[in-house]
């Protein structure tokens, strides 16, 4: 017998995960604000000052803005996916003793991580605004929709990887490296136009490029109305979620055997 997914349980677990993340350190909520700002400072110093990284020519803002717009969505995506991938192993004690819908465990870890990183995104954008860098806020709703599709994509990948990681433990070692590589292959620290001209078409093979471009066109160009590209992101992320959920459903009865 399989247990039905329960939204109440999903939200309880997510809340618990968030509370746990915040309450286990002395300063709790304060880190939520301080960590992203420190991180932004470090990146601004290393890439802006040391490496003299520049924003693309037609970009009216400093390099940090270009970086910040892409970095936090990427962190939300990669950290939540990686944590979700380890969620089954992390909750192995629970899984071997209580019959509950296991996907709830994965999705709640993922949701908590994604939300916490989004708070960081909000803090960073708010601080940039206070520093006099005015983004195109009319594109905010569009940007949020893009982030929702990114969350759907992370859920699909997280479910798939969580199921696979139970069987193939090596993923635990491989995934962080793979995600780091993916990070550098995504135009977050640079713009696609910086690449040699013959390599530029290749960057669009990386789906994350599409998400980054969608976010920047929403918050910089102020594109308020989602267009066909958004439909593409939505369709792609939903497809990944369906495949991920299918793989997870097939594997979940046998987790106990391999944990």
């Amino acid at each position, binding site marked *: 017998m*399989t247990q039905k997914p329960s939204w109440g349980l999903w939200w309880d677990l997510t809340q618990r995960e968030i509370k746990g993340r915040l309450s286990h350190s002395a300063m709790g909520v304060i880190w939520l604000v301080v960590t992203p700002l420190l991180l932004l400072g470090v990146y601004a110093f290393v890439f802006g000052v040391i490496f003299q990284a520049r924003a693309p020519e037609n970009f009216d803002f400093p390099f940090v803005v270009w970086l910040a717009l892409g970095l936090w969505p990427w962190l939300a995506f990669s950290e939540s996916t990686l944590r979700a991938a380890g969620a089954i192993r992390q909750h192995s004690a629970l899984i071997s003793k209580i019959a509950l819908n296991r996907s709830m465990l994965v999705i709640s870890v993922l949701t908590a991580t994604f939300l916490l990183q989004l708070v960081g995104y909000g803090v960073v954008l708010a601080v940039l605004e206070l520093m006099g860098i005015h983004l195109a806020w009319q594109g905010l709703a569009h940007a949020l929709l893009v982030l929702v599709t990114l969350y759907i994509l992370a859920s699909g990948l997280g479910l798939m990887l969580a199921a696979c990681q139970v069987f*193939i*433990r090596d993923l635990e070692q491989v995934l962080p490296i793979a995600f780091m590589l993916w990070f550098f292959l995504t135009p977050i620290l640079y713009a696609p136009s910086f690449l040699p001209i013959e390599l530029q078409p290749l960057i669009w093979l990386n789906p994350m490029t599409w998400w980054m471009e969608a976010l920047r066109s929403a918050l910089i160009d102020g594109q308020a109305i989602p267009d066909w590209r958004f439909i593409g992101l939505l369709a792609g992320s939903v497809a990944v979620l369906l495949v991920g959920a299918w793989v997870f459903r097939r594997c979940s009865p046998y987790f106990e*055997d*391999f944990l």
Partner: protein
Amino acid sequence: MSDALLSLQGVSKSFGHADRRARALLKVVFQGLAPTGKPVVTDIDLMVHRGQSVGIIGSNGAGKSTLLKLITGVLAPTQGSIETHGSTAALLELGAGFDPEYSGLQNLHMNAAFLGLSRSQIAKHLDEIIAFADIGDAIHEPVKHYSSGMVVRLGFAVVAAVKPDLLITDEVLAVGDESFQKKCIRWIEGYLANGGTLLMVSHNMYQVQKLCQRAVWLDGGAIRAEGDVFDVTQRYLAFHERKDSQAQVETRSHGNQAQYALTALMLNGVAEGEAQLGVGDTLEVEISIKSPDGRAPVAMVGIVRADGTPVYGVATDHEGIRLSLDPDGQATVRCTFDHLQLLPGGYQIKAHTLDPEGLRVHDTLERPLTVVGQTRELGTTRLAHRWSQPNPHVGPTTRSPS
């Protein structure tokens, strides 16, 4: 008369090979097949109807916990089908689902949610749960500071509040202290009296006999015996007592070179296998002896418990019986125990030959005997007794249910 809350048909479970993980993953994902490997539970058929209480007994590693995990849905069967109707709550292990970092109260909320209680239901039962657990202010402490008994208290209290149609417990009550155990037993008795259904694993046969009507004996992953709780638990205990004494039995085996040899040991007219008897039935032990030198040896009959504890022994020379030999030097002697008052359990009937002087044992034969019956008397033998009350006029006699 009653509907099945739980039915298992041909349920088998194999754990996947730990060294073929990648292959197992491909098989599970692309073919939708269960990974194959070491069988833990094989071909189990089991029905539990509403209002029944069933105990699952068996040695360590017999597959009891795996079976319970299959029933609760923690594990999926490799073969067969499991159907449950109605709500199920399981106490599979100490502190299952408790996060040690969180307080008892927080864990209580989470655990109740795992068991399917909504927030409003939890709020409604909260005082009741806390009162049942009875761990005082510790409810606000993190669970990692709890003793194992306190964890069980909390876990049981949540289950007690859920009042499931089917309650599944796996040897959890053994941890609580005496008073909490009694409280749990009382609760389970009340739950059963109100039509609840129980499936429990326990090594405590007394508890199983007290709480269950039926018992299932698992051995090596398969059902070895199933039926009335007294019958099954007694056979199980007898099996274990024999296993304990097996080493001794082997060293004292039948010696072929004995001078005064035993040629047969019949129990109630049957020469081989395990004899079965009810409490108060008559047992006839018939011994055949061969004497090589025409002298009549001494015959001895003994009853020991299956673990080797002597119950009774008597020899022909104690009572002035002389064996009469036929011309071939053979003799047969029968010892009859009328209305044998052995209590249910496993026993060994032993026969010995001693030299005519009654000094040295020459030969030994043993046969197992199982006494069955429904009684909660303790010990090995029923002793004649009667109850009376010296002051019957003090007040009306009351019977306490316990």
